[in-house]
């Protein structure tokens, strides 16, 4: 699956870049603007369809925010109002009283932030070695990583859980990992297993492969060590790739639900997606508070996406895999 995807992905990225660079000159820009705003019946139909579609796509987000600002009486009204009659920002502070969403938020931030850093550091080191340094066994390591990349999460989740539970000498376990709870309900469980995914190594390798050979030869002539070449010469050149991978990994970790669900039960370790799911199960959950919490859980990613849209899109085209 993977080898095929990447070649396709690379072509796609090239295509995007060519397209984005197309309209540079002022004359072209002018022609462009005229083309863009020409009114034809076909265009009107296109706009009507796209507008209806995009409004439907946005509707859940709109509804989330509107609900989070409505009073209790207004929420129970049917048919519901499209714009709140009074904007009740107090819902947010009351939601924080009902469940410690600020802690959940902080935990998610710590987890996603840590994973972003470890993924970029470990992934770029590994990807660099696989792309630019000849060493015995390189092929085997690479094939192994590609094979691991195709392992579905659900085939390994049970054993991963057991490994965390049986971490020796942690959480009351003896040296054989028996007797206690190991890493369950600790930060280790939240942080360590997800610290690196094979996809990250693979992507970094692809990015480093695209750099010219002359660079490292020059660096070697200057007497730089392999690590110095990696750190000072090559890595600064793949900065866009780093941003792309960092964004995707942050998003993936922030949105992840299954793993925190399995390994944490303590409230002070709950990440925000898990916090939402638990909050919903409590009996008198108010929809306004739930939607306030949901807004908090989606906002960082929405903002990140809007700021770094270009990188997100490039990353998706490149990896062609979700997240």
């Amino acid at each position, binding site marked *: 699956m993977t080898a095929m995807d990447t070649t396709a992905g690379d072509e796609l990225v090239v295509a995007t870049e060519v397209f984005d660079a197309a309209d540079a000159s002022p004359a072209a820009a002018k022609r462009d603007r005229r083309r863009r705003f020409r009114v034809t019946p076909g265009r009107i139909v296109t706009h009507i369809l*796209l507008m209806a579609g995009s409004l439907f796509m946005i509707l859940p987000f709109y509804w989330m925010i509107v609900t989070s600002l409505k009073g209790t009486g207004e929420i129970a009204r049917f048919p519901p109002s499209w714009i709140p009659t009074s904007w009740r920002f107090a819902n947010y502070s009351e939601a924080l009283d009902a469940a410690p969403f600020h802690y959940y938020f902080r935990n998610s931030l710590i987890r996603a932030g840590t994973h972003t850093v470890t993924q970029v550091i470990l992934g770029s080191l590994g*990807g660099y070695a696989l792309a630019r340094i000849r060493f015995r066994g390189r092929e085997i390591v690479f094939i192994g990583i590609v094979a691991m990349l195709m392992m579905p999460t659900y085939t390994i989740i049970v054993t991963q859980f057991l490994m965390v539970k049986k971490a020796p000498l942690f959480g009351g376990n003896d040296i054989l990992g028996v007797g206690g709870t190991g890493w369950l309900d600790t930060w280790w469980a939240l942080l360590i297993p997800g610290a690196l995914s094979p996809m990250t190594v693979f992507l970094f390798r692809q990015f480093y492969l695209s750099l010219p050979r002359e660079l490292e030869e020059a660096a070697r002539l200057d007497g730089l060590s392999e690590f110095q070449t990696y750190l000072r010469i090559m890595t600064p050149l793949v900065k866009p790739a780093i941003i792309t991978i960092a964004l995707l990994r942050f998003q993936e970790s922030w949105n992840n639900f299954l793993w925190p669900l399995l390994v944490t039960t303590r409230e002070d370790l709950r990440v925000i997606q898990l916090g939402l799911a638990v909050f919903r199960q409590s009996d008198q959950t108010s929809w306004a508070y739930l939607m306030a919490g949901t807004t908090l859980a989606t906002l960082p990613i929405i903002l990140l*996406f809007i700021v770094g849209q270009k990188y997100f899109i490039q990353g998706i085209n490149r990896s062609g895999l979700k997240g």
Partner: protein
Amino acid sequence: MTVAVKHVKYPTLERGRRRAGWLLVAPAALHIFVWITIPVVVSLWLSFTDYRVLRPPRWVGLDNYREIWNDEVFCTALKNTAIYTFFTVPASIALAVVIAAMLNQKLALRTWYRTAFFLPHVTATVAVAMVWIWMYQPNVGVFNALLQSIGINGPNWLSDPNWAMPSVIIMSVWQGIGFKMLIYLAALQGISRELYDAAAVDGAGKVRQFFHITLPLLKPATFFVLVVATIDAFQVFDQIYVMTRGGPVHATTTVTYEIYESAFQAFRLGLASAKAVVLFAMIFAVTIISRRLVGRDED
């Protein structure tokens, strides 16, 4: 030849480089080996054991697989996963290709459209599922309000066994369009404009151009999207867990949800591993079949 010369010239340097290679790749390789390779092997082994956490695993051969085979709920889960995949994947692909084709031109508001269609993909499934649960509420939800305004009495959505799966599917289609649209947009930019200009000269309208030029040329992209989306759909979990918990009466139980139930509700880790192996086999089959098809295409 050159390599040989280098070896003679800088033997120590070469060795240092080799060692550097290993040093740099070691942390990554080790992490992946410990957290993925070992679990894959252990999971396979566990699937042949009876393991209920408290007592050590006991080898039972194919018992777990036999139990799965005769388990009606698991068969329902297989069927539900197939239904979910069968409806979610083609629907989101069809919508994505049409939207991408419409967006593949100089158009006012193009960025807005693209952002709107893509946004659901980047947001967490759990979070957006919360919003959809709220919108699906039979008595106060926005969907039934909209339906009522055009004179239709809306269903009970998630709590109706006949509507629960369609409800999950609708949400997943909504969330899945953006990613596929993006792949298509990139693929479309590789198609030469001249083809369309020539077709226009020949008097082919936009719709005919779409069916006779765009769609055939998008075949590789479609194939890729189809495989990735199918593998993804086989592993649907978050929205099932949050929206329906597999219910009502197993109407939305999927394979992943069954794995979760066996492992973390019933604490039968051996049985759960066997179910996970079945899921792996399904995904593997899709990968192999797709490889074969691609191979034949290239010949």
